[in-house]
């Protein structure tokens, strides 16, 4: 681990500790149902992770996030390929996606509740509709950023379409795909909570609603931290994949 990376981790930990310290100070002056002490929040957080039935809710939310993101990613990739190859397709599809992008997540939740019966399909529908436009446009942009020079060089060897895809297109769009995942992950985590809050039984969002009904701030914080931790873990995983996948890139010493 380099010195600069260690320093960044220590600085991040220090800022979190300051935040926790400020919260703890508030808990000394306000009622515990408004500002529960930090040890109580941590205790409840750990309890969720070690209690099977409660951990199941966290895993259910995680599964819904991944299910929605993967579905949107696959569908978005297909749409991006179609749009990338046809101006006519772009003229028809892009305005629809832009329109969808303007619809708030809560509206999709209401639509899903009115249109569909099954909880899981509702959540999947909401996740896909809120992340599909971003995935499509980001993958399309990544595809269009492909170097014309590299394309001509590769075409000089007369590759098949599959070979061109494998050797040039995929490596070109990988950075864009990883960025799209990082951006959409945060968005998906927020949307799934709203979807579960309103239209699901089980999951972090459902548990947050329960804590709100019980006026239990420590519980609400603990369940919120589950989601935050999940997003942090997945984002760090994506960062690690990105570091490995883009290891060929030169980095200025000034940036280290």
């Amino acid at each position, binding site marked *: 681990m380099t010195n600069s990376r260690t320093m960044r981790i220590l600085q991040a930990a220090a800022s979190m500790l300051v935040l926790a310290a400020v919260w703890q100070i508030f808990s000394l002056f306000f009622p515990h149902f408004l500002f529960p002490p930090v040890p109580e929040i941590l205790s409840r957080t750990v309890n969720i992770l070690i209690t099977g039935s409660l951990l199941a809710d966290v895993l259910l939310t995680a599964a819904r996030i991944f299910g929605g993101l993967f579905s949107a990613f696959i569908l978005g990739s297909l749409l991006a390929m179609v749009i990338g190859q046809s101006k006519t397709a772009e003229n028809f599809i892009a305005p629809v996606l832009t329109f969808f992008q303007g619809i708030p997540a809560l509206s999709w939740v209401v639509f899903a509740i009115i249109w569909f019966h099954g909880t899981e399909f509702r959540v999947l529908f909401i996740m896909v509709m809120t992340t599909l436009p971003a995935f499509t446009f980001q993958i399309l942009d990544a595809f269009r950023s492909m170097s014309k*020079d*590299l394309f*001509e*060089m*590769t*075409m*000089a*060897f*007369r*590759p098949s379409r599959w*070979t061109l895809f494998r*050797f*040039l297109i995929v*490596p070109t769009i990988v950075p864009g795909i990883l960025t799209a995942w990082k951006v959409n992950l945060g968005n998906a985590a927020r949307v799934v909570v709203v979807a579960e809050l309103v239209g699901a039984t089980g999951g972090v969002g459902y548990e947050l609603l329960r804590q709100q009904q019980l006026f239990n701030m420590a519980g609400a914080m603990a369940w919120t931290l589950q989601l935050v931790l999940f997003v942090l873990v997945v984002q760090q995983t994506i960062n690690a994949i990105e570091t490995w996948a*883009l290891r*060929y*890139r*030169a980095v200025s010493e000034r940036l280290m």
Partner: protein
Amino acid sequence: MRNMSSADPVIRFTDVSKTFRRPDGRGDFVAVDKLSFEIGKGEIVAVLGKTGCGKSTMFNIVAGLIEPSFGETRVIGHDPFHEFNFFRGKIGIVFQNDRLMPWRSALDNVRLGLQILDRDHKQAEETARAWLKRLGLSGHENDYPHALSGGMRQRVSIARAFAVDPEILLCDEPFSALDEMTARDLRAEFVRLVRQNNKTAVFITHQINEAMEIGDRVMVFHRPARIAYETRLGAATTEADRRKAYEDIIRVLSVEQAPD
């Protein structure tokens, strides 16, 4: 399509023209105008001309990357644009910039063409290593392009073009981005490799000395890609003839050319 005899030209342009639509709506721009020439097997032809005279457009037509607007193009007896896949493994190209894939090591960049052509994996690696060694890059097989100097990257791109053992080599100002010493070494290396492997080569340059050093024949283009002057240079060419050819080329290049 008739079978080619050994006397047939490898590259033949017959009244080839190419026009591009101007993006600003000012009509069409003529990049190549009724260009005709022939290049025989084993010839190294240097194409010289000012910037914007249509050399690169001619180059792209030979490579099959763009379609001529009029005229007939034949490379090894076939149309390079419409019979695009016929030329798999037959044409090697060295571009002005190295165009190395940044995510591939030097070895993998040299292997690229061999992989596209579905050559045996082990043999492809051996061939790629051998070409890197011939070009003085042993020990750099696993380096990514960003870790190589400009000259080294261009050597990798030359190795990549030669590795597929093409019949024809097309080079578009491949040494223009390098310093004179590096370019001089690579020019000598390039000519040696072309002759040793009996390739036909078209070499585009805007430097007169480079054209006369490399080419058996020098064609000087005027805008829009018309042959304004042509000369043959061989081992028998005297120093006086070379000087005269140099002066003729300077004179031809100095002539006012058609505006855009």
